[in-house]
């Protein structure tokens, strides 16, 4: 995983760091404690996998990326310096890894992003069978639109809408200014809206 960047030097304030329990888990992982690593993975596997799924569009690649990221983490967790939140550092690693995978896939074959959606959804409370059908339709439309979206736009939208990251956190994950986050989010939302409407 060659393109991974490290926790930014310039994160500000201790309030932005991970909670104490999580910090302790990371420290134990650095000391070689597999139980701590197991706990950390269980805490994050859902989001690591779903962010990767959102960015890559299929369960196989998402699952591969999630496993790669955790294996990489076990060897390289010493690079985490407790200067940013652990979650933003991890999301940065995951999204960079997804971009690498897309680059690699693009070089090997040129067909557009495939949408394989045999994977079970997280159950959502649906009042009626009709609304369940509607939900399935929505997801279909959305995934097709997301697949056509620019890489940068898809990444920022998934991190913001799915994980609800703040502008500050987004600027940490994406390595750009808060002003850039604001304008890119607007462009991304406009572009997605256009794709869904057409």
């Amino acid at each position, binding site marked *: 995983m060659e393109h991974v960047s490290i926790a930014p030097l310039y994160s500000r304030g201790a309030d932005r760091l991970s909670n104490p329990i999580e910090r302790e888990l990371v420290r134990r992982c650095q000391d070689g404690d597999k139980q701590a690593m197991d706990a950390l993975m269980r805490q994050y596997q859902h989001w690591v996998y779903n962010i990767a799924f959102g960015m890559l569009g299929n369960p196989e690649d998402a699952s591969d990326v999630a496993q790669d990221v955790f294996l990489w983490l076990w060897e390289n967790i010493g690079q985490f310096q407790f200067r940013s939140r652990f979650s933003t550092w991890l999301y940065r690693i995951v999204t960079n890894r997804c971009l690498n995978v897309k680059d690699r896939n693009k070089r090997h074959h040129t067909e557009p992003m495939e949408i394989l959606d045999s994977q079970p959804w*997280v159950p959502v409370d649906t009042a009626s069978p009709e609304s369940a059908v509607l939900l399935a339709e929505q997801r279909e439309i959305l995934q097709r639109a997301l697949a056509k979206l620019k890489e940068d736009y898809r990444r920022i939208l998934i991190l913001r809408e799915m994980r609800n990251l703040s502008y500050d956190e987004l600027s940490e994950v994406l390595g750009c200014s808060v002003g850039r986050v604001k304008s890119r989010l607007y462009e991304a939302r406009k572009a997605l809206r256009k794709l869904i409407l057409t």
Partner: protein
Amino acid sequence: MMNHRRIQNQLSAYLDSELNPEERAVVEAHLSICDACAQMMGDFQQNRQWIAALEHEVPPIADRVLAQLPDRGPVRRQFFPSFDELRRWVFRPSTGAAAAAVTVCLIVAFIYFNPTRPPEDALDLYLTVHTEHVAYNPLRSNVTADSLGEDMKTPDTTAEDNTDFLLEVHLGD
């Protein structure tokens, strides 16, 4: 409506509650009277909900990884930034802006308080720079020198005289 574009630029930040109260009020006032912008806002909200609902059940990733984890001792913790980090820090726009500001301050300080001059020269230079504003300055006026009266062509030195006088009074006691 005259300001759709300006409002639409703010809609995304409005959705994220990143506007200050005044900006919010302007956006809300416009949304209440403009169908096009309200429609855009509605679509942004709907798409946000759709993406938030785009969650799949996770396969047993932690179990699979745990089975593959090699044993290892403590890893070396990095206390110092890597080259990549330093490079990113140095090339941040705010770092550049801070460096530029410091450079300007140093240059200005050097001109005002040039350490190679005797100390009284520094004060003279300071006064000259500041009295220039009240004296004739073609860059600051759209009136040409020729259109001014004869007495205006020579720089007015009364301001400087006054300053000297005031300084004398001040330093006298």
